[in-house]
């Protein structure tokens, strides 16, 4: 028997050689299969959060609106396109806030330079109303883009173990194979450059701003998030893109806490030299009409159709001033 006659060190050596070969094969399978999935993934367009990134990156747009579920529902690209005579994409996503917007902006800037970037603000973009971990935790749809340093840094938080996991190309598609397959065969139909027609959904007094829901009555600013917001603005400005901050209406009057944060955004806009289009219901009382909303802070399609022309007109004025149209 060869095994029994060999020395322990030669047996260990032989075992380690085999183990190394196996790990090499695993790496090859991970890379090869990962590339195949990647190939199909890049061809998908349809889907809310999951494949919206691809749609945005698939072709250049002149105006891109970033933000949360409010952006997703409030900015109707077709109306803006007619008004501005520019191509518009709605990159807002349900359950996503500033970190997602920043990561997506970085991916987009790597591929093309739009003329205008709109960021619809939520109060909690600069506060501690939600933990960073929770917010980042919802960004797993960005895992396929972990090759980009800014995305990788956000997803891993700089932690070695998380970076190691994302080295696996297959892991980047963890729990997404079936939705990817479904998205691959589904073609965009109900969506309009990122906008989803939600219809005339009925109003329910739910979903306040995270800051209003938070127990702490004071505004607690998050310096890290403020830095990310500034980086969001700066990286666009460096490419001579017009950055426009915006705030869209709500079904009820704003709380003092949110008012205070809006003042902060005013100061930030001045400091960074970007325009801030704030269309609040207090100044446009017709937006207190609850038939325009599906909940406290999300307009339905009727609301979107009422708000977008107003916003587009403001944006048009800005573009005319800067001769960008």
């Amino acid at each position: 028997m060869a095994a029994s006659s060999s020395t322990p060190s030669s047996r260990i050596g032989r075992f380690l050689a085999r183990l190394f070969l196996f790990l090499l094969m695993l790496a090859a399978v991970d890379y090869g299969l990962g590339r195949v999935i990647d190939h199909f993934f890049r061809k998908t367009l349809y889907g809310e959060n999951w494949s919206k990134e691809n749609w945005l990156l698939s072709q250049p747009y002149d105006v891109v609106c970033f933000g949360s579920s409010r952006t997703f529902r409030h900015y109707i690209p077709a109306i803006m396109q007619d008004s501005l005579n520019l191509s518009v994409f709605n990159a807002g996503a349900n359950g996503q806030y500033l970190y997602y917007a920043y990561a997506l902006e970085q991916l987009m800037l790597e591929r093309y330079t739009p003329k205008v970037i709109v960021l619809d603000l939520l109060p909690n973009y600069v506060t501690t109303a939600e933990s960073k971990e929770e917010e980042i935790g919802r960004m797993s749809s960005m895992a396929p883009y972990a090759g980009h340093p800014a995305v990788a840094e956000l997803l891993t938080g700089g932690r070695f173990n998380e970076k190691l996991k994302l080295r696996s190309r297959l892991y980047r598609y963890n729990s997404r194979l079936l939705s990817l397959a479904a998205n691959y065969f589904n073609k965009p139909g109900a969506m309009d450059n990122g906008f989803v027609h939600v219809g005339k959904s009925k109003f329910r007094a739910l979903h306040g701003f995270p800051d209003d829901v938070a127990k702490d009555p004071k505004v607690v600013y998050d310096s890290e998030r403020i830095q990310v917001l500034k980086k969001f603005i700066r990286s666009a400005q460096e490419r001579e893109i017009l950055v426009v901050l915006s705030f869209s209406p709500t079904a009820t009057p704003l709380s003092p806490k949110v008012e205070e944060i809006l003042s902060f955004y005013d100061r930030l806009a001045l400091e960074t030299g970007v325009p801030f289009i704030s269309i609040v219901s207090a100044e446009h009382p017709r937006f207190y009409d609850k038939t325009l909303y599906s909940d406290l802070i999300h307009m339905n399609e009727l609301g979107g159709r009422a708000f977008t022309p107003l916003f587009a007109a403001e944006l048009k004025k800005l573009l005319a001033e800067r001769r960008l149209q």
Partner: protein
Amino acid sequence: MLFNTLHFGYFFILVAALFFALPRRQRWIFLLLCNFFYYFCFKAEYLILLIIAIGVSWWSALRIEEHGEREGGRRAWLVFSLVVNIGILLTFKYFNFFSRTIMDVSAALGGPLQVPLLKWVLPVGISFYTFSASSYVIDVFRRKLPAERHLGLYAAYVSFFPNIVSGPIERAPNLLPQFRKPLEFDGARVASGLRLMLWGFFKKLVVADRLAIYVNAVFNNPDPHSGATNLVASLFFTFQIYCDFSGYTDIAIGVARTLGFDLKKNFDRPYFSRSIPEFWRRWHISLSSWFRDYLYIPLGGSRVSVPRAYLNLFIVFFVSGMWHGANWTFLIWGGLHGLYAVSSKFTQRWRDRLAAALRIPAGLRRAFAVFFTFMLANFAWIYFRAADLATANLMVARILSADYGRLFIPAPDQFVYSLAAIAMLLAVDLLQEGRSLAHWLDARPLPLRWAIYLTVLVIILLIGIFNGSQFIYAQF
């Protein structure tokens, strides 16, 4: 440092590499340090309790042996050891339970009493290492085993890191001598250990943790869900707990095997059992056999009157429920299994006669028995998993209601992964009926074996849940 974290991966690689690099005589010292470090990582303070358990049981066993034929002295040391070790276990597990019960009962009787509550976290693995240490002292007392004179080797046995958190509960006659055995590196053995670990990770990450998402959503709030949803959640939990616990055991046995140690089998595809007594011969085997040897047989086992034998059986299951924790849900779970086991024995003859009279084919009878046993176990698991009795009763009421219209499916693709995971598990378990899959694999050519391992790894990467969640039995 749970098995399903990368930290454990680094720890394991380092331990395995250094273990085989060290001279044989020093390996036990290294292993003992690793055991203590591993335990220290959970909660440093509780290392003291582990050291007390080791010290008291080791010292008591030596004293028992020294007393030779003097039964009184021997018995005194046995009692001392059991009182200290089981006493610590009872204090941590049941003090608050009894305190709350006293407060509840006194309040119900109109004279509410205030009893202090402990704010201690249950030390990891205390139920497991206490049982290992206690069985060693009892075995020495019964003269089945000579007392171990080497404190270091004994400490390495009780604190052995692969099985300290959730077993298998190892008996000294099996594991202790292995620390003296000269261990040579054996590539085939290491590969076999790694393969078992791979299967354990599949069970934990792909099946248990995935099912946990649905199970937690429903068990945490069963009220708004339909009977169908509650039933599906209970079925999912039945598979979740199996894969969580047996997955842990597979990883533990695999880790030990790579280092050259053999731990006992703890699961043998229990959901293919044809009766509850058979289920308990195939589920958590190390605990069932512990209770058999140290409780059931001392109570008289089956060599007593029939009613007494039934009572003994019921007591064993009831105590088994208590072992899991201080909660009425565990007691009901244990009590249910006790009732099942007694009823199974009681009705065995009638069922055989009925099957013979009706000429039911053996295959059909077997299939029905497997299904019925599975459903009985499933029903009891509802009590095991539910946060309290009211929740469990609510779930049972929902399941028994006629409301089977709406099935809660928050994400269809995730639900499909769950079903696929269960199907893969059952397929592998079914393949092992009457044959050893490990032996079958060993007989295949290397490329085929590697292709199978790579496929399992790809499945884990694609549909595993990597949130490093706790193993259910680590809380016991």
